[in-house]
């Protein structure tokens, strides 16, 4: 009875820990993004709430919670209220399979530092990132507004297109690691992180991930210059906040998956594994923010052209070559 209780307690503790850390990180990522973008544009960014603006996320939260929550007259009420949750939930669920440290020994028990070490972790992640489409699609459709609908249509086709190249760019990694489990993939990078063995796959994955998180230069679903705010045009208050937070949680998830798949996860010298994992994830997040401050938005046809005519063939070729080389090595 007691070992079972301890196991349950540990799992719950892990869940709460991850939940709190991811949500706080998402809130502070917003602050970091605003600060870094400010610096790029020779501004300070938010620095009024608390020292260096560290309380800004709290102020934003209070603002969003106290705003009026409006539902347009023509909106499909149920779907409209459901969609933001879908967006944030699918993003949060993905973190279940991300290992952030090697197993720990507590109370004489082997405690894996991952919520659930699925043996099909990669597929689980790909599936959830496909489900993330629903948040956008339903949000845009239920708003009953032309801008929202246009945004969600763009979002749908973009996510579906870039999922393809993202999935294909993960295949060589799976081939090399001989496992779908993310823990095994990290362990397979003991000698060298996969970024060195698979630079092309890494680049394709990075580009697809940027598109998947709907960030500049692939932010066509919201494209504030053309579509007001895209699929969340009609949302206000905390419902908008959920979309917003979901986007940043998504960014953290995708950064941590980049870390796990290509940058060697928690592996690294001297520092403890969790620290290494955090450093790598934050570095990728910083890169995303840097990209946002640097590149302009693509045109819609350029986006589709780039996805289907360049990334997908390149990823396919990469799979073929990797498979061939692995077969040749095995034969030799």
């Amino acid at each position, binding site marked *: 009875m007691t070992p079972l209780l301890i196991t349950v307690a540990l799992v719950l503790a892990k869940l709460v820990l991850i939940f709190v850390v991811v949500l706080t990180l998402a809130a502070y990522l917003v602050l970091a993004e605003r600060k870094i973008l400010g610096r*790029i544009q020779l501004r*300070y960014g938010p620095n009024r709430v608390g020292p260096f603006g560290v309380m800004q996320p709290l102020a934003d939260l209070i603002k969003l919670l106290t705003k009026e929550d409006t539902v347009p007259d023509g909106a499909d009420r149920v779907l409209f209220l459901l969609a933001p949750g879908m967006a944030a939930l699918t993003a949060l669920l993905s973190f279940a399979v991300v290992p952030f440290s090697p197993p720990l020994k507590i109370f004489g028990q082997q405690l894996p530092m991952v919520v659930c070490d699925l043996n099909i972790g990669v597929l689980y992640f790909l599936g959830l990132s496909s489900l993330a489409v629903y948040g956008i699609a339903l949000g845009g459709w239920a708003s009953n507004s032309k801008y929202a609908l246009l945004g969600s249509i763009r979002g749908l086709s973009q996510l579906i297109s870039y999922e393809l190249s993202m999935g294909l760019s993960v295949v060589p990694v799976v081939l090399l690691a001989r496992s779908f489990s993310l823990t095994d993939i990290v362990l397979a990078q003991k000698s060298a992180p996969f970024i060195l063995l698979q630079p092309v796959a890494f680049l394709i994955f990075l580009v697809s991930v940027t598109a998947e998180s709907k960030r500049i230069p692939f932010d066509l679903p919201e494209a504030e210059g053309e579509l007001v705010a895209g699929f969340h045009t009609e949302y206000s208050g905390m419902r908008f906040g959920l979309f917003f937070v979901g986007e940043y949680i998504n960014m953290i998830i995708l950064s941590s998956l980049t870390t796990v798949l290509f940058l060697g996860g928690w592996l690294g010298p001297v520092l403890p594994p969790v620290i290494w994992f955090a450093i790598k994830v934050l570095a990728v997040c910083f890169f995303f923010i*840097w990209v946002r401050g640097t590149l302009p938005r693509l045109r819609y046809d350029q986006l589709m052209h780039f996805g289907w005519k360049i990334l997908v063939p390149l990823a396919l070729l990469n799979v073929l070559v990797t498979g061939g080389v692995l077969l040749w090595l095995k034969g030799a």
Partner: protein
Amino acid sequence: MKLWRGIKGTIEPFAVTLRNMLRKPVTIQYPEQKRTPFPRYRARIVLTRDPDGGERCVACYLCSAACPVDCISMQAAEDENGRRYAVWFRINFSRCIFCGLCAEACPTLAIQMSPDYEICSRDPLQLVYEKEDLLIADGGKDNEYNFYRHAGIGVVNPRGGNDDEYGPVDIQSNMP
């Protein structure tokens, strides 16, 4: 070639943004740091005084006529020795567009623009400045100028008594 240009054009901006990220922001942190505007900056309007301490305004209505938004109003009067002055003088700063046309129109350099730009208020009525609020104890941009010392009217000195003036001409003796 086109591909190379594309790749270069994608990567080079990253160096630019990184360079800018490490530079000092140009922001002036307003409530703590204030910039001093240039002397001819056009902000709050003031009524100046001549070197002798008298009001310069002669209530000629040229400023209120020149004002494109009609924010200046006044009432003219004349004291016993013929000096014109404004009984009341009012500028509604919630209407003023700080164009400076009033200062340009003023023949006595009485109304001038000052660089004091911090005149906001939550109550529009507080932005209606009366003569007492507008008058300053200074000559502003041309400290030495006193209209009545050049006007040819016997206010400061008897008629024709100013430095660059001569007395009334006897028109009978001024025949060709």
